[in-house]
């Protein structure tokens, strides 16, 4: 790991003032579970690390009639263990448990989970986020792309969005709050993720000198919510496909649905087609199957990942059926 300056501000304003106006020179350290791995491998080499763990305003979980507020520094273990989250947002607690091993859950933070960098093996091996060879050919399109995107992959970005708890947070209609030199802003979580078009961009809409301050979730909607992951092995592995669904019911029919897939595109992928397919329908095997078909209708697999289309289809179908039968286990 290369040397760096280490600073530990105690207020949000100090943290913002210590960050650089462009990417590369400074990085934010919270739990460090992703950042330190990237620094060891020389994928990022910041000159300054801004440790935000001493900023009290970024901590804590609170519930109120207005909903749930989770500070940026909330750990995955906090999400998994919090009594209010387990009771009112069980799919979120379940996704947090599945996100990492216990030791990582004890360190990794919510904001870090949202801002973690892609698992793409070209990126992790130093070829860049949008890897190209010297003649400009895309390495991923021509190379080993078995774990890459099947949707939203028309541009140079072929990696998949790495968070497994983001799809379920989007299903819960979460909003993210940011703070920077120009003040505060709030975005629906799905708008926070963007597909980069150049190597200078990142995969989220966080300015280089902005910090994530908190995530808020509206009061638990009267909805059936579930999350489903498909992995090569049962524990501690990056998934191959993730689906999260929130189904608002009117009687026995779906009034409206939110269907979000993870690990299929460079951003968490919402599927209006699948949502439309379920609207005004009863919940059963047949309607779940139709929605799942709609979710992957526009998939354009790369040379080695056609199998992921089927996995994404199955993840959506099973998430819908799991929600129908009561949601999180």
């Amino acid at each position: 790991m290369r040397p760096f300056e280490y600073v530990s501000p105690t207020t949000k304003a100090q943290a913002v003032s210590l960050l650089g106006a462009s990417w590369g020179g400074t990085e934010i350290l919270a739990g460090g579970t992703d950042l330190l791995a990237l620094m060891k491998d020389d994928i990022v080499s910041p000159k300054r690390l801004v440790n935000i763990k001493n900023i009290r305003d970024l901590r804590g979980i609170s519930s109120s009639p207005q909903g749930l507020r989770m500070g940026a520094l909330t750990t995955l273990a906090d999400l998994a263990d919090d009594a209010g989250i387990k009771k009112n947002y069980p799919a979120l607690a379940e996704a947090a448990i599945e996100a990492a091993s216990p030791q990582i859950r004890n360190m990794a933070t919510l904001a870090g989970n949202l801002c973690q960098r892609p698992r793409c093996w070209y990126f992790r091996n130093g070829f860049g986020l949008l890897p190209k060879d010297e003649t400009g050919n895309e390495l991923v399109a021509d190379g080993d792309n078995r774990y890459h995107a099947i949707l939203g992959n028309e541009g140079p970005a072929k990696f998949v969005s790495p968070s497994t708890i983001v799809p379920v947070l989007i299903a819960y209609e979460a909003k993210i709050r940011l703070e920077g030199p120009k003040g505060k802003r709030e975005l629906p979580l799905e708008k926070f993720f963007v597909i980069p078009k150049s190597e200078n961009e990142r995969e989220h809409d966080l300015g280089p000198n902005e910090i994530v301050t908190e995530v808020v979730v509206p009061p638990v909607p009267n909805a059936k919510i579930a999350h489903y992951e498909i992995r090569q092995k049962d524990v501690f592995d990056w998934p191959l496909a993730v689906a999260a669904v929130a189904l608002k019911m009117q009687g026995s029919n779906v009034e409206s649905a939110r269907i979000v897939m993870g690990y299929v595109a460079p951003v968490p992928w919402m599927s209006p087609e699948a949502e439309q397919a379920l609207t005004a329908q009863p919940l059963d095997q047949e309607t779940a199957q139709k929605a799942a078909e709609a979710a992957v209708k526009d998939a354009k697999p790369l040379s080695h990942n056609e199998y992921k289309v089927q996995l994404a289809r199955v993840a959506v179908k099973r998430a819908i059926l799991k929600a129908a039968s009561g949601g999180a286990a």
Partner: protein
Amino acid sequence: MQKNVTIDINGQPHRQAVEPRLLLVHFLREVAGLTGTHIGCETSLCGACTVLLDGRAVKSCTVLAVQADGRSVTTVEGLAQGDKLHALQEGFWEEHGLQCGFCTPGMLMCSHDLLANHPTPTSADIREAINGNVCRCTGYQNIVNAVKNASRKMAKRVSARAGAR
């Protein structure tokens, strides 16, 4: 630029000026001289370097020493009381929970975190708790047995203490 850090390790304060890039596991082994914590993969996959940071299991190869400044760390050396092994160490001894022993410090510290929060875990709880720790010898079954053995011992001691009162 070096930073002064004070880390409480097994009840003893260790004060040292360190480079911010020094990993906690290197602080433990090279500054404090406590080599019971093992370095396996150094990529937070294998769990051999697991220690307790303020009571919770973490992978010390993916924590900076400066992140542990002002906090307390428990390593495998902190488990036994003099010649008296910790119930978990006894459990691993009696149930043959180790062969080569490389993963054992991490397995012990992870299991310690588990039993502190779930004194009577099921086999599934134990397997979940050690899912970030790799063992290439035992096939894990004897480790699960060892943690159960320790859980029974600790429950007996708690009830014996309660009875004595």
